[in-house]
C-alpha cells in the first residue's frame, strides 16, 4: 500500500515536467536573427529591466522597419530572471537550447551574469552584457562581451575632471555596501581617490532599499568635506541628494556619483537639489550626435519619459549585435558572430564611437556630466 502511493505521486511529477515540452521549431535561417534578452522584470532590479526592455524593443522595431524585405530582421525574445541567478540559468538554458538564439543580451545584474555567462561560454553562445559593470564578467570566456563601461574606466576619469575643475582635496564617501553594483563603484572610487591623492575623511554606508540617509549625512556634514562621493543606485541617490540639501549641506559641497546616477529619474525625484551634482557615466544624454538625438526623441515619445543609461546601452547593444551579424554574414552561426563581434571598431552608436577592447570590454569615451537648470550637461562646458 505504501509505495503505491509513492508511485502515484512520482507519476504526477514526471507528467508535469514532460508537459513543459520543448518547442523546437526553427525559423527560416538567414533572414531573422533571434536575440535572447534575459532581463530582470521582477525582483530588486525590476526598474532597470523595464527600461532595458524598452531600449531593445525600440532598436529592434527600428531595424525591422528599415530592413525591408531582404534585410536582416531582429527577433527579440524577452524573459524574466526575477533578479535571481537560479532563474537566470533557466532563462539562459531556454534561449540556448530551446529557442536556439544567435546571441544573448543581458542579464541585468552582475551577480546573475557571473553564473549565467558561464553556461553561455560552455555552450558557445555569444553574450553582450549591457549593464554589468562588475570586474571579471568578460574574463569568464571569449564569448562574453560588454558594451557597458566598467566603473574602473568611468570613475577615475570623473575624479580627475572633478579634481581639475574644483580642486577638491578632502572628501567623504557614502556607499551601499550590500549590493554588488554599488560596492563595485565604491572600490573604484577608493582607488581613483587615492591615486589622485585626495584624502578620504570618512566612509559611511547604507543598505539597499534605505530611504533615510539623514543620520549619515548629518555626520558627514560635520566633517565639512570639499565634496561627497556617493556610490548608489538612482532610488537611493535621489534621496541622498534631497536630504543632503535639506540638512543644509551647501551647494558649494558638490555630490559626485557614478553610473547609478545617470538617469532622468534622478532629476525628476531629487528636483532642484540635483543642481550641481557631478555624474561620471558612460552615456551623455544631451550629446548632439544625430544617432543619440534620434534615440532620445524616439524613446521619449514612444514611452512617455526620457531614456536612462540602461535604455541607451541596451539600445546600442542591439545595433552592435546587428553589426556583428552583418559582418558574420549569418543569422545563427554563433561562432562566426562571435568572431565578427570581436572585430567591431569605431562603430557609431548612441554611446559615441564604440569598439571592443582586446578583453572584449567596452571602449568609448566616458563623459562627466552635471545638472544645470534641471538638465544634464557636460561638466565644465
Amino acid at each position, binding site marked *: 500500500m505504501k509505495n503505491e502511493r509513492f508511485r502515484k*505521486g512520482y507519476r504526477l511529477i514526471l507528467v508535469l515536467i514532460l508537459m513543459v515540452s520543448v518547442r523546437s521549431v526553427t525559423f527560416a535561417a538567414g533572414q531573422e536573427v533571434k536575440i535572447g534578452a534575459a532581463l530582470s*522584470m521582477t525582483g530588486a532590479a525590476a526598474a532597470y529591466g523595464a527600461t532595458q526592455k524598452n531600449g531593445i524593443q525600440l532598436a529592434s522595431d527600428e531595424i525591422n522597419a528599415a530592413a525591408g524585405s531582404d534585410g536582416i530582421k531582429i527577433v527579440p525574445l524577452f524573459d524574466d530572471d526575477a533578479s535571481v541567478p537560479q532563474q537566470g540559468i533557466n532563462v539562459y538554458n531556454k534561449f540556448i537550447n530551446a529557442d536556439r538564439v544567435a546571441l544573448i543580451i543581458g542579464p541585468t545584474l552582475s551577480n546573475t551574469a557571473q553564473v549565467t555567462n558561464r553556461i553561455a561560454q560552455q555552450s558557445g553562445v555569444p553574450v553582450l552584457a549591457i549593464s554589468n559593470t562588475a570586474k571579471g564578467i568578460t574574463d569568464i570566456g571569449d564569448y562574453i562581451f560588454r558594451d557597458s563601461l566598467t566603473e574602473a574606466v568611468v570613475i577615475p576619469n570623473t575624479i580627475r575632471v572633478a579634481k581639475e575643475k574644483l580642486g577638491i582635496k578632502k572628501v567623504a564617501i557614502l556607499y551601499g555596501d550590500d549590493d554588488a553594483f554599488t560596492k563595485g563603484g565604491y572600490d573604484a572610487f577608493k582607488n581613483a581617490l587615492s591615486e589622485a591623492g585626495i584624502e578620504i575623511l570618512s566612509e559611511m554606508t547604507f543598505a539597499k532599499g534605505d530611504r533615510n540617509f539623514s543620520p549619515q549625512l548629518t555626520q558627514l556634514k560635520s566633517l565639512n568635506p570639499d565634496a561627497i562621493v556617493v556610490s548608489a543606485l538612482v532610488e537611493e541617490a535621489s534621496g541622498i541628494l534631497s536630504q543632503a540639501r535639506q540638512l543644509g549641506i551647501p551647494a558649494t559641497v558638490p555630490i559626485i556619483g557614478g553610473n547609478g546616477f545617470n538617469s532622468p529619474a534622478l532629476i525628476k525625484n531629487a528636483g532642484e537639489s540635483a543642481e550641481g551634482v557631478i555624474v561620471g557615466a558612460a552615456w551623455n544624454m544631451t550629446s548632439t550626435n544625430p544617432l543619440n538625438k534620434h534615440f532620445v526623441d524616439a524613446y521619449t515619445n514612444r514611452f512617455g519619459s526620457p531614456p536612462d543609461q540602461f535604455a541607451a546601452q541596451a539600445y546600442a547593444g542591439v545595433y552592435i549585435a546587428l553589426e556583428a551579424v552583418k559582418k558574420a554574414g549569418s543569422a545563427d552561426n554563433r561562432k562566426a558572430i562571435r568572431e565578427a563581434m570581436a572585430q567591431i571598431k569605431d562603430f557609431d552608436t548612441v554611446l559615441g564611437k564604440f569598439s571592443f577592447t582586446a578583453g572584449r570590454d567596452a571602449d568609448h569615451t566616458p563623459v562627466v556630466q552635471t545638472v544645470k537648470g534641471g538638465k544634464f550637461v557636460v561638466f565644465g562646458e
Partner: protein
Amino acid sequence: MAFLMHFFAVYGNLVNFIGINALMALGLYVTLSAGQLSLGNAAFAGIGGYTAGILTMQFHAPYILSITSGAMLSGIVAVLIGLPVLRLRGVFLAMATLSFGEVVRIAAVNLTITGGAQGLVGIPNKTTTGLIFTVLALTGYFMAKLRQSRIGWSFESIREDEAAAASLGVNTTFYKTVAFTIGAIISGLAGGMYAHLNFIISPGEFGFSAAVQLLIYNIVGGTRIWYGPLLGATLLTALPEVLRGIGVTAGPIRMCVNGIILLLVILFLPNGLISLLSRSSSIAGPRP
C-alpha cells in the same frame, strides 16, 4: 535517446534546482514535523554553503569533506541557537529564528571571508545531478524510517500537543532541539551542494524571502508526510518554467500566480497537495 539529451540540455539545471530545493524543503520539514515553525533554515543553508565554499576554495578541501563539514557546522550552530530559542512558541519562535537568519545574512554581507555583497565567487562546480538525487533519496528514506522510530513518534506527539507529550515521558526540549538540528544539518548539506552548483553564492539568496519560500514549499506540498514538501518544491520550482512554457508573460503575473496558489492551498487544502493523492488519514489528516 536524443530527446532525453535535448531535455537535459534545456532543463538540466531546472532538475538540479528542483533536487536542491526539495532537499532544503526536507530540512525545514523535519523541524515542522515537531511542530516548530522555523524561519531560520535558509540561514543554515547559507552557513553550510559558505563554509563548504570557503573550505573548497581557500583550503582546497576535498568536495565531500567540505559539504559534510558545512552541514555539521550548521548542526552545531543549530544546537547553540536551539537551546534558548526553542523555549518560545509559534509566532515568537518564527520571529526569533527570522532574526537569527537576518543576522547571518548581514554577517555574510560584511565579512571579507564571505566575499561581502558580491558573495563567494569561483566555487568549483562539483555537484552533479546524480549526487543531488542520491542524497535526496537517502534523506527521504531516512525520513520515512525516522517517522517510525521513537524519535519520529516524539516529534509527532510534540507537534500534536506538547503538554500531553511531556506527560507521556517525552523530553520535549531535547526532541525539539533534535528536530531543529537534523533540519539544520540537512539544510546545511543542501546549501553546500548548492554552492558547488552555481559557481557563486551571494548573501541575498539565504535571507528572509528564501526562508519564506522553504515554508511555502512545505505548506503547498503538505507537512504530514515526508514527500509532501518534495511535491511542493518540485511544483513551485518548475512553475516559472511551466508559465514560461505556456507563454504567460514574464513579470508580476507569475508572482501573483504564486501567491494565489499558496492562498488556495492554505484555505482549501490545509494538509497540502499531497493530501489529494491519498485518502489515508496519516497523510490527509482528519477532515476539519
